[in-house]
């Protein structure tokens, strides 16, 4: 079965490549009237990019969780048999979704831009996954460290939020546009929290593996962060819709709960010194470097998110590219770095001795980090320019407004090209490792 998971994880890397490619295409098509008037339209390129990003994260995270679930708890035969169903149904659904876009079939909702019928397949796949995961877990009497809780929480809450995202099919949930928007963004906001649980759980697990220190995942601090994350998942989605005339307490609850995340900022600052010592010990490991990069991005994006969670500041950032900086900063800087770190560890790239391999990896790593920083800063700058202008003169014509933003967005696009190059190097290095491992694995031995 392990070979299947590894293949599934390699598939996720292909999705990441697709996501990066369509990011470049979407950026150019944003300026299509300037460059290539006949190229693919933005509303067609963007869904490829967004869905590939979403499925890269979900596929990699679930693939890694299933792999390590088997390693930690073994596999009860019945639940074991469900995994291929999950993998098969999921891959089929993802392929069907991408194919729909080729035929310009859209579902037109944020994150879920594909025809909703494919949600049924995704749901079936997810149920297989849940049965297989929890079935194995409940049969095992072993103690469950915090990362297992995080994986389980992420998997379960993804099901809840995914279901909630589809409630709009029932007319009652569209009784008013306020209700429609509120529930749509409640579920979208919490869903991100759900996949963060899976990904952060994988990050913690990797740290335990690298350091050999099991206490990291049993400490009070670890459990505290887990529950703080879960509380924020439940209550802190309102910042998406501060400007919608919902009941005032929706805003109040979200604003208040989001401020609890300052605790994390303080804890990161306090832990900085011990991180330096830790870093000296493990910096030769490629996976550790990616993990440390993710911690840097956690810090930066946490600060940005905390500011955006204050409605008075949100007034300038909402409806601008600052939200894109937040979305991309977290999905690339945090989720993707942690997942790539886990995959680097899994495919044993850390053990690679060839200098050329390590050099290419390091080049890819640094190009990625530096260009991502520029990318993130340009997005924030573009957003702030638009936000300031829009707030100062709300009735200014859109084209005029955007003339001020385009130069910065172009810089964003150029840094995106470099980011594409850097990340592609990393992904290709990992795919080459995956290919090496898969070709030498005797499946009957590892099954």
């Amino acid at each position, binding site marked *: 079965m392990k070979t299947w998971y590894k293949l599934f994880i390699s598939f996720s890397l292909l999705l990441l490549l697709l996501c990066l490619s369509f990011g470049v295409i979407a950026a150019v098509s944003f300026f299509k009237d300037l460059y290539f008037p006949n190229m693919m339209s933005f509303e067609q390129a963007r869904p490829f990019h967004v869905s590939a990003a979403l499925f890269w994260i979900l596929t990699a995270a679930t693939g890694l969780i299933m792999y390590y679930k088997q390693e930690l708890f073994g596999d009860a035969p019945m639940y074991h048999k469900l995994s291929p169903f999950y993998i098969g149904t999921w891959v089929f659904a993802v392929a069907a979704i991408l194919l729909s876009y080729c035929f310009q079939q859209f579902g037109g909702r944020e994150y879920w831009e594909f025809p909703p019928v494919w949600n049924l397949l995704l749901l079936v796949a997810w149920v297989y996954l849940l049965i297989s995961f929890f079935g194995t877990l409940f049969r095992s009497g072993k103690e469950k460290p915090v990362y297992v809780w995080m994986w389980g929480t992420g998997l379960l*809450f993804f099901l809840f939020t995914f279901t909630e995202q589809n409630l709009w099919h029932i007319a009652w949930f569209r009784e008013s546009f306020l209700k429609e928007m*509120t529930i749509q963004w409640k579920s979208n906001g919490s869903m991100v929290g759900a996949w963060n649980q899976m990904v952060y759980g994988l990050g913690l697990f990797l740290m335990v593996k690298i350091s050999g220190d099991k206490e990291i995942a049993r400490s009070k601090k670890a459990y505290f962060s887990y529950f703080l994350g879960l509380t924020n998942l439940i209550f802190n989605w309102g910042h998406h819709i501060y*400007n*919608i*005339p919902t009941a*005032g307490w929706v805003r*109040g609850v979200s604003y208040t709960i989001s401020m609890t995340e300052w605790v994390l900022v303080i804890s990161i600052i306090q832990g900085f010194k011990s991180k330096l010592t830790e870093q000296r010990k493990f910096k030769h490991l490629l996976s550790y470097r990616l993990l440390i990069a993710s911690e840097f991005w956690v810090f930066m994006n946490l600060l940005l998110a905390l500011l955006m969670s*204050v*409605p008075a500041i949100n007034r300038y950032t909402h409806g601008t590219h600052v939200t894109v900086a937040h979305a991309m900063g977290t999905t690339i800087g945090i989720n993707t770095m942690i997942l790539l770190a886990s995959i680097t560890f899994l495919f044993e790239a850390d053990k690679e001795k060839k200098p050329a391999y390590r050099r290419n990896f390091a080049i890819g790593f640094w190009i990625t980090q530096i260009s991502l920083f520029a990318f993130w800063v340009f997005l924030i700058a573009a957003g702030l320019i638009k936000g300031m202008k829009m707030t100062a003169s709300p009735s200014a014509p859109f084209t005029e407004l955007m003339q001020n933003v385009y130069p910065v967005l172009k810089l964003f696009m150029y840094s995106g090209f470099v980011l594409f190059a850097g990340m592609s190097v990393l992904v290709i290095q990992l795919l080459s490792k995956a290919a090496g491992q898969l070709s030498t694995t005797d499946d009957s031995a590892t099954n």
Partner: protein
Amino acid sequence: MVKRIFAVLLLAYICYSAFIYAYGAEGGAKPTADAVAGQSVWQSKNCQACHQLYGLGGYMGPDLTNIISDTIKGPVYAEAFIRSGTARMPNFHLSDQEVKELVAFLTWVDKSGKSRVPAENVTWYGSYKIDKQ
């Protein structure tokens, strides 16, 4: 202990969700049949990839939440764009019925509130006070 805290939070999630569904977003007009059909057109053409409603969506085009009640723009102006597109917005070759439905959808959206929050609605502790429409 961990199990207990988890159970409490799970319960909180369920209760808070139910509460939001029931009381979080009360008020606002019901959609007409045309508005419901218009939302399907909006979704199937993926207008949200470029446009925002209440600031949410893609940023290639402008926010359309209050275009219908805009005293300068209004429904006729919106219809002209929807019918023919521009250099940056595709022409979707929509039927008269689809255009009418899209305008009905945008009218329903507009009636639900204002996308921009005026400065006087910001409270001293940094939150908003927004009155219902």
